[in-house]
């Protein structure tokens, strides 16, 4: 943490960053970018949509009022083969709200989050979300979905959060290194920034992913079991970010298992058991008979196979 205020390491990691983002290929990417900017606006937009992965010139004009950051879903269903992950979900995550999604294994919680993030296409129904259309949604996957052996360093991982500013081929902006350092300091990882992610503990890795979320500066933040692998103190540290994001007017949705934590920290709860059981005020959603109903929906006949879906 002390490092972040010290100018020397910051400069070093700035040069590291430039290195890592590919000095060797810079001229080539530069010429690609130049030839891109020679295209008309429409062609550029189309390229950005299909190819340049989210690089969006209009993203530089700051963010609009966060108020529009809510998500409304109507009759939303996702099906794998013949089995529904979840179905007929209608409702709203209000702008600037903090919602917990809970439910038994196989209830479709993870699938719901991936659908909201635009990673899975819904089988039916629609999502109305201005942030999704503008790629201002950030998504934290479950840890085991990422390859921890992948050769990438902590700075690199966190720098990816600024993807919107550089996309596939462009030069990263000058202030990227400073912003990465800031994000790392905020999660308390300044001392390990040059390590490979394989060398991090589970808790440190989760902190790094939170730093990437900070970099993304999104209007909607979706977290899949953010605290599942963590010890109590790390959980408390990271919980603060959720509350901070909500105060900043961002919409936060998190899949959780810990009912006590949900009661303590989450004003709203969606109880999901493939179809929605209850959605609204946490104290009402988590009434005992709702929970029992959610359990019962997903018990056998095919209980043994359900776990694979989530």
């Amino acid at each position, binding site marked *: 943490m002390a490092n972040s205020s010290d100018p020397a390491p910051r400069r070093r990691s700035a040069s590291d960053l430039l290195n890592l983002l590919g000095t060797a290929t810079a001229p080539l990417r530069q010429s690609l970018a130049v030839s891109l900017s020679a295209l008309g606006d429409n062609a550029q937009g189309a390229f950005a949509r*299909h190819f340049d992965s989210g690089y969006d010139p209009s993203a530089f004009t700051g963010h609009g009022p966060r108020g529009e950051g809510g998500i409304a879903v109507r009759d939303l269903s996702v099906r794998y083969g013949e089995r529904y992950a979840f179905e007929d979900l209608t409702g709203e995550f209000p702008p600037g709200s903090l919602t917990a999604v809970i439910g038994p294994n196989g209830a479709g919680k993870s699938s719901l989050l991936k659908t909201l993030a635009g990673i899975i296409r819904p089988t039916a129904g629609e999502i109305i979300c201005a942030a999704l259309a503008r790629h201002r949604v950030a998504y934290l996957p479950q840890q085991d979905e990422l390859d921890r052996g992948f050769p990438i360093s902590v700075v690199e991982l966190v720098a990816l959060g600024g993807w919107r500013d550089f996309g596939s081929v462009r030069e990263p902006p000058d202030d990227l290194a400073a912003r990465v350092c800031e994000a790392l300091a905020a999660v308390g990882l300044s001392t390990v920034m040059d390590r490979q992610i394989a060398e991090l503990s589970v808790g440190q890795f989760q902190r790094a992913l939170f730093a990437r979320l900070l970099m993304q500066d999104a209007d909607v933040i979706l977290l899949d079991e953010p605290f599942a692998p963590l010890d109590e103190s790390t959980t408390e540290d990271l919980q603060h970010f959720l509350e901070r994001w909500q105060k900043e007017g961002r919409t936060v949705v998190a899949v959780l298992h810990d009912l006590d934590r949900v009661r303590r920290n989450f004003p709203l709860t969606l109880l999901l058991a493939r179809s929605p059981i209850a959605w609204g005020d946490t104290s009402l959603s988590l009434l005992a008979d709702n929970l029992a109903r959610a359990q019962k929906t997903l018990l056998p006949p095919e209980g043994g196979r359900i776990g694979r879906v989530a």
Partner: protein
Amino acid sequence: MSGQFIGFLTGPFESFGFMRIALVACFALALANGPIGTLLIMRRESLGGNVLSHAVMPGAALGFLYAGYSLSALTLGGVLTGLAVAGLAALTARSRLQRQDSNLIAFYLVSLSFGVLIVAARGSQADLMHVLFGTVLAVDVKALVLIASISSLTMLIVAALYRPLAVESFDPAFLRAVGGGGGAFRAIFIMLVVFNLVASFQAFGTLLAMGPMLLPAAAARCWTHKVWPMIALATVIGMAAAVAGLLISFYANLPSGPAIVMGSGMIYGISLLAACRTRLKATQLWGRQ
């Protein structure tokens, strides 16, 4: 003495045109296989890559059936069936009807048998050996130009699109969430793999085409945890194995393709041992703390 030794190393290449062409072809392959092999390993898709190397065979065999040893027919056929199997594999992966590894093995077995049947129906035993194991020393100038073009194009594309290719292999969901271009890069990468396997096929045949792509990259992985050094090291290892393999096959009168792959294999073995030793040391240090 040292002059003699240098003569021993360079003599075959000075005296024989086919050795020079083989060497340049192997160098070109190594240059492209460095990045492609490294990316393949980072994506944990070595098995998929191996399947594609066999998927090239039926098409190449069909090309052979219609046009004999015509470079363009072999190449076109190989690329077509390679891409077709890649597409099928993507479809079956999405349907989740069967575990993907058994799917891939099925594709691999069927492609291989189908290819062998086609070649056997028309050609001789020698033709079959040629298609299965390749003949590095029979690469002619036309094939060399093809290999070199594919290799150059591959390096340009990887250099230009390295960032999204790498991110797509690490966290495809992230790329989808920030933009949505994820699938395109996956497709581009698979296409690069198929084209390089077709290039490799000219020299190493369908059974060994994967060797020069995978083994140097796997060996490099043992020495470094950073991607650019890994790519560079894989390229150097590929080239070294090519020189060693060609010389061994020349002096000992052994088939050159397998000799080169054996060369990479030995470097891989040494690298594994070295990696084990450093890891042991590291754990001892940890224990002491």
